[in-house]
């Protein structure tokens, strides 16, 4: 009983998640795609480190943290650009994007320095 209902529930859950996500606007989906790409790159780097070893450690750290950093910043951008977010309705999306670019600039400058 438990198993069958949980399977049904899981199916219903998956279905409702899918339909709810399909309703998000296209620009947010693009940002989500970018986030997914960054996480995927980070995973590749971690797997590579597990295979090859962590020397030089600063390069590994720099690479992984650059992926994590771009993920975080993209999520921040998504939060600020999302029309449904009441807190940010006064913020023009151009300003949000400009902040995003500036923060990415600083992040990548530091990464270039730390890459070694």
């Amino acid at each position, binding site marked *: 009983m438990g198993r069958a209902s949980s399977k049904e529930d899981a199916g219903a859950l998956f279905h409702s998640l899918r339909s709810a996500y399909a309703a998000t606007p296209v620009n947010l989906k693009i940002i989500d795609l970018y986030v997914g790409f960054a996480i995927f790159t980070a995973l590749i780097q971690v797997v590579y480190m597990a295979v090859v070893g962590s020397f030089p450690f600063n390069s590994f750290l720099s690479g992984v943290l650059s992926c994590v950093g771009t993920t975080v*910043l993209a999520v921040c951008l998504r*939060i600020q650009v999302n029309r449904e*977010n009441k807190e940010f309705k006064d*913020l023009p999306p151009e300003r949000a994007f400009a*902040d995003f670019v500036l923060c990415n600039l600083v992040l990548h400058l530091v990464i270039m320095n730390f890459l070694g």
Partner: protein
Amino acid sequence: MAPPEASSAAFPNRYASNALRHAFGDVLSYFILLLIGVLAFSIRIFSVIKYESVIHEFDPYFNYRVTKFLTKQGIYEFWNWFDDRTWYPLGRVIGGTVYPGLTLTAGTIWWLLNSLNIPLSVETVCVFTAPIFSALASWATYLLTKEVKGAGAGLTSAFLLAMVPSYISRSVAGSYDNEAVAIFALIFTFGLYIKTLNTGSLFYATLNALAYFYMVCSWGGYTFIINLIPMHVLLCVVTGRYSSRLYIAYAPLVVLGTLLAASVPVVGFNAVMTSEHFASFLVFIIIHVVAFVYYIKGILSPKMFKVAVTLVVSVGLAVCCAMIAVLIALVASSPTKGWSGRSLSLLDPTYASKYIPIIASVSEHQPPTWPSYFMDINVLAFLVPAGIIACFLPLSDASSFAVLYIATSAYFSGVMVRLMLVLAPAACITSGIALSEAFDVFTRSIKFQLPGVLSNAEVDVGETSSAVVEAQNVAGKTDKPEETSKDRPSRKKKKERVHEEKPSTKAKAEKKRLLALPLAASVISLLLLVFLGAFYVRHCVWAAAEVYSAPSVVLSYRSHGRLHIFDDFREAYAWLRHNTDVNDKVASWWDYGYQTTAMANRTVIVDNNTWNNTHIATVGTAMSSPERAAWEIFHSLDVKYVFVIFGGLIGYPSDDINKFLWMVRIGGGLFPHIKEADYLRDGSYRIDSKATPTMLNCLMYKLSYYRFVETDGKAFDKVRQTEIGKKYFKLTHFEEVFTTHHWMVRIYKLKPPKNRIRGKTKKSKPVQFSLFCSKNNSDVHLQVDFNLLMLWQKTSSRNSSRSGAQKKNPWH
């Protein structure tokens, strides 16, 4: 609330007058801020006026020397500098072990001024860096408190911070130490964090990360920031105050902050590997989980959300437990659980005294006494609880941060007196909030009751009723300073008071009657608050002028109307500088290492960095051993000169005999033949006739009291208040070369080893020294053969076997 009674024609007038009032208010507040900056700068100039523009204490001399090097050689040489003039023969990697923020800041200021053709010397720039940055720190406090409570509270707390004695003590003109810029960076980082939290702007998040980078460059206390901010985020999440602004304020800071911290050489990979940073990573994961949960909650219907929760909980719990077990195993495998010694001694105050005597021996690391709280933060000590209450009315993210900051810094200040400095900004912020709220309430009561202002009063009515409710609570607190001064701001007591206040505020809000304090009471209370401020100002000026302005390099005291100046330290360093060879090694206790390298420009064995416990224990053992063994030790380190600080003639209490117990303890911690019990008589260190023979024969005793009986015939030590035990003795392995005017610094030279060694090499050691006893100081005679015989001595000592009669010699 009564509607504004203005007609359409009068409305633009009211709008214009409001705008004018706001503009006037802005100009006034910026002018006040400028004055506060000038105040912060000038109150710290007492030391330059009363004494001279000189660098104080010990650590600033090292920073000064590094800045001189930076300005002379340039930044690439600075990053790669390996210093061979300290910790001889080990040397020290300066580029990788120094926090570069302070020296880079002062170097930049010097370079900027010189490129504008203002030829200030490096010393002047170093001396005045601290006052300039304290002005900047008070402006940063304005920024922080404005975000918490408003511009009025901001101005009050900026004014309080400009004068608080605890901060003055570490940032007086001449105190060129890390805290001078670090406190500014600390407050600025917190201020930008709160600003990001309030506005949710990624721009301020970037600035926050850059300010945090400046803090990491400046001081080891940056770990306080990287643990306090995650604590606050966790508090917000747990109390249901999660918002997307919190995510924007925290997540970019962690990523950028970790990267920037790892870029600073002294931190390096510690930024990801030590336990001090794990809290930030843990909360990073937690906030992502929470954000994801909120997102899913937003896009699903409530029923589906419940299904999702049960599914995730059942699957995710197992995975979570596995990961936590792995993490705990990793952390528990290191002996200190990943924490550094200094951080552990903060968490467990008894740790240092049990395991690391060097940390326990520093006077700044002792717990503070109760009077030091009133000396260092004075009136703020009982305004802080009022401020904590004011933070709860109403509670916002920013004010919860202020409460958390004061609670944690109050705990840490109780562990180490040095951390009173971190308490000072928190105390100023909360006291500023309290004072500002009280002022608000009283002035509103007065305004409400003045007849000419009735038209505005109706508009203000709604604010006044809630403000007056606060007044009853806050006034009750400020009128009873004696009660609150006894309560330490602990979280338990704060919660009790909050529970007391909440039912009364609810009851009064429900009544919604107009309550105003009587006019007389408000006026008198205002005057009393101004009085309080006057007491505070008077105390701060006194503390700055009399207590904290003394450069410990130059001592002075007033007697019979005359001012006596003791400039012995600089006299001794100048003697060393002019009368010894550039490559000579000088040994002393580690307190004076920085000053010796900076002022005397000679190579030292140990200095204030205390990074190598074994080396310090070596010097400590040498000071505690008899002359022969001490000569052996110093000779093996190529030392030529030894100096001790002696205060017995003038009554200077911080001399080496008083520090001797640490030499014995640290030396005994590593070399078991030094036993503390050998030096103690009835549990205390004595130097009079009842002293133990080991004490009377040790090098420290002999070097301090050699020829002391010639001063007054009775050899009365003014610090220990007794006549010394052994008055007439000769030195066999050392010769006195210089004693300063007031006998404060006594410099000795190692006698060179014997020219000829009679008999077999196995017996050479005892035979050598018995021949020394009869040798007179024919320096010229020895000088000629010196280099040859040193060379010969070295080769012969390498060849001779070290067995035989060296049972007591621990060096082979």
